[in-house]
């Protein structure tokens, strides 16, 4: 099916990019392995959707597609929360700079 060809191509591309970034020392080995695992599992599910159905049945969910959605929600929640924390850290660093700048005026006086 066309959708399978498109998705597998994307996964393959993502897999290649992951290891290219590893070679460029952008991401550590542990992260490269984690992403690779994700792409391989996703490719497996795309090629043989019945795998996800079997896992879904195992955990008590009706359809494999539903399981994928259920799993995606907490993952996205986690990623968004991580972004919020990163944002707050940046805000605090900005405050540090502004504070440093303000206190320099005190030393001048």
């Amino acid at each position, binding site marked *: 099916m066309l959708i399978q060809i498109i998705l597998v191509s994307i996964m393959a591309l993502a897999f290649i990019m992951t290891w290219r970034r590893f070679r460029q020392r952008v991401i550590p080995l542990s992260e490269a392995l984690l992403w690779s695992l994700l792409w391989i599992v996703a490719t497996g599910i795309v090629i043989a959707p019945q795998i996800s159905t079997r896992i879904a049945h195992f955990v008590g969910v009706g359809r494999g597609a539903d399981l994928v959605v259920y799993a995606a929600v907490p993952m996205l929640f986690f990623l968004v929360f991580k972004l919020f924390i990163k944002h*707050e850290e940046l*805000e605090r660093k900005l405050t540090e700079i*502004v504070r440093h700048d*303000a*206190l320099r005026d005190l030393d001048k006086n």
Partner: protein
Amino acid sequence: MKIVAVLPAFREETRIGDAIRGVLPLVDAIVVVDDGSGDGTAERAEEAGAVVLRHRLNRGQGAALRTGTEAALRLGADIVLHVDADGQHDPASIPVVLEPLRSGTADVVFGSRFLGQEATNMPTSRRILLAAARTFNAFAVGVPRRVTDPQSGFRALTAQAARTVDFRQDRFAHCSEILRLVTRSNLRWMEVPVTIRYSEESLRKGQKPWDAAHIAWQLLLGMFVR
């Protein structure tokens, strides 16, 4: 004992002058932190006799307070006094807040609106909100129940305490954060009754019920930041 008052100010050009003139006779120096107001706040404060620091960008009340506290310590303060810049905190209460520090019976003193001194014009909605905040502080933040005023910005610390209390919340969550840090430390703390004067203008600019949710969220995030 050198007492330095810290007034974080954001767009207070109409009220900062009076606030400073009210506080100045009772302290040795005043540090005003103009939190990126972009109006005449800094000029009015300088005219009134305060040492003025400027945040180039608006970073929030907590951030300005922290900057001012560090400035006060550099100026050689023995006692750092936190006061609002909008004149809500009645200067007549300042000696009451300072007394336990002067006599050495406490390291940190919090001014409370709920210890007998009746606040003028406190709206019922504010009263309910503060009661809810107190419960939230107790369960979610871990601030003892015997703290009567969960959002008091009227407080004084010894220089030693001011160096110890490492508050990092930039916006309004610093009140709860300071309470948590102080009540969990070895510092001796107490609450004293103070008078808060609510005016229509200060209420308009003050915190809205929605901000309570925001504060809760900030405190949650703060738990995960580095």
